[in-house]
């Protein structure tokens, strides 16, 4: 007798039998439920439930929004609508910045390509012992951020110079 046959002829444990019965029952219920959710009646019932819940909650939601807006106005605080409007403007600005960034990158590339090789090559030695290496931001940052990072690293020469002239 093969191992498989021996396995089959073994009496099943009660828990195993219970599990098989359970799975068979669940399978049949699952199939029936798939048919139920596919009916027009189910679509109608869930639609009605959703519509009713929206209709019931709508006046409360509106009242809440109105009173909240009044409170915020009294406190001179921005409302949700104000912040939403501001966020929309931010996205528009971000999009424009992204386009400017891409254009700058293209110009940078074109300028670099137009320059003679000697002009683009880095000098072998710094001209004076005081000369500092060029500020560089981490390469993994997007170009805009690299520029911002480089600006942040740069010493505040201009501001110092301006202050000097004022004096």
């Amino acid at each position, binding site marked *: 007798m093969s191992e498989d046959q021996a396995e089959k002829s073994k009496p099943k444990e009660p828990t195993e039998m219970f599990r098989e019965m359970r799975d068979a029952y*669940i399978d049949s219920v699952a199939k029936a439920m798939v048919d139920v959710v596919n009916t027009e009646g189910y679509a109608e019932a869930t*639609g009605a439930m959703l519509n009713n819940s929206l209709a019931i909650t709508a006046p409360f939601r509106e009242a809440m929004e109105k009173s909240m807006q009044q409170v915020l106005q009294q406190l001179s605080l921005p409302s949700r609508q104000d912040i939403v409007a501001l966020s929309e403007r931010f996205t528009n600005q971000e999009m424009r910045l992204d386009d400017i960034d891409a254009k700058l990158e293209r110009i940078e590339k074109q300028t670099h390509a137009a320059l003679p090789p000697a002009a683009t090559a880095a000098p072998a030695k710094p001209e004076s012992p005081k000369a500092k290496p060029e500020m560089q931001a981490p390469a993994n940052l997007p170009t805009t951020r690299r520029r911002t990072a480089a600006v942040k690293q740069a010493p505040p020469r201009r501001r110092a110079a301006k202050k000097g002239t004022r004096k």
Partner: protein
Amino acid sequence: MAKAPVLTDQFALLDERLRTINKLMMAKAPIAQTPKELVWTLNKAKLYRYFPVVPAEKRHSVPLLLVFALMNRPYILDLRPGHSFVEFMISRGYDVYLLDWGAPGPEDRHLKFDDYALDYMPRAIRKLKAVSGCKEFSMLGWCIGAILTTIYAAMRPDDGLRNLLLLTAPLDFSNKKELTFARWTDEKHFDVEKVLAAFGNMPGEMIDYGAKSLKPVENYVSNYLKLWDNLDNVRIVESWHAMNTWVTDNIPIAGGAFRQLIVDLYRNDRLMKGELTIRGERVDLSRLRANLLTVIAEGDHITPPCQSEAIVSKVGSSDKELFRVPGGHIGIMAGSGAHKLTWPHIDTWLGGRSE
């Protein structure tokens, strides 16, 4: 002599199992662990580049952009080490990028397919080209991501898209009998304007409820029974935990895009009829000329196969293939058999077209 099991031991065991299940349902599994860098952002959208593991000279020259659906997190493509499509593709020498749409806020309630396909995608692709230094690219769209990639590919045929892969793409809405979602969202029962007036965006929880209700017993009962029966099997528990983390991490769909999905697609099938207009321009599928691979899940109850078949005859591509895989909507890419069937086929198809 062995002691007979005491009733209190059984209770202790039951208590321990319940605690484990509770922990698995409450805690998030470590997911999306393949190293990547952020290369571009716009509003909530982010473009990531995965660090290549294959030397540059052995890599495919055409980069691959992954675009997932709007209503779930894209880390299903990089679920966990050893079970990650992204990890598989970078190990096969692809330069992989992922476009993550992020979660829309109230300020994004007006975002439409128009904005995603013509504002976000072209800019992300421009950045991809700048970072990779490549003029051509491949794109993989999954579920609603496939709708967006199809619209983009048809409207920007000269942008350098060489290969387009569509996974379980809901594009054809003509067979209403097969589409449970179409029945539920019919204008007789579902008032899309009322829902959007109340919430702004379509809440993730409602989308999740809808998706799970297609197979209620499997999703609300069998799923947990499977875990209960296999609590001692570390492999199954880890896989369940990662999948549950993803399934429960829902995000809303921007109101404008949801309205288009229901009105233009589910109710009126405008894309296939050639009547869908994006920013006033008709989406003409015959303008889509990229090499096309459409992957269909034979057991898909969310996007039945009939929704993804017709695209092959509508596009203008000369190189097109329809690939059927046994499995469900998510299972074909994230299931245990994905690395034996779906992923190798995608690699073989794309590899030959990425040099």
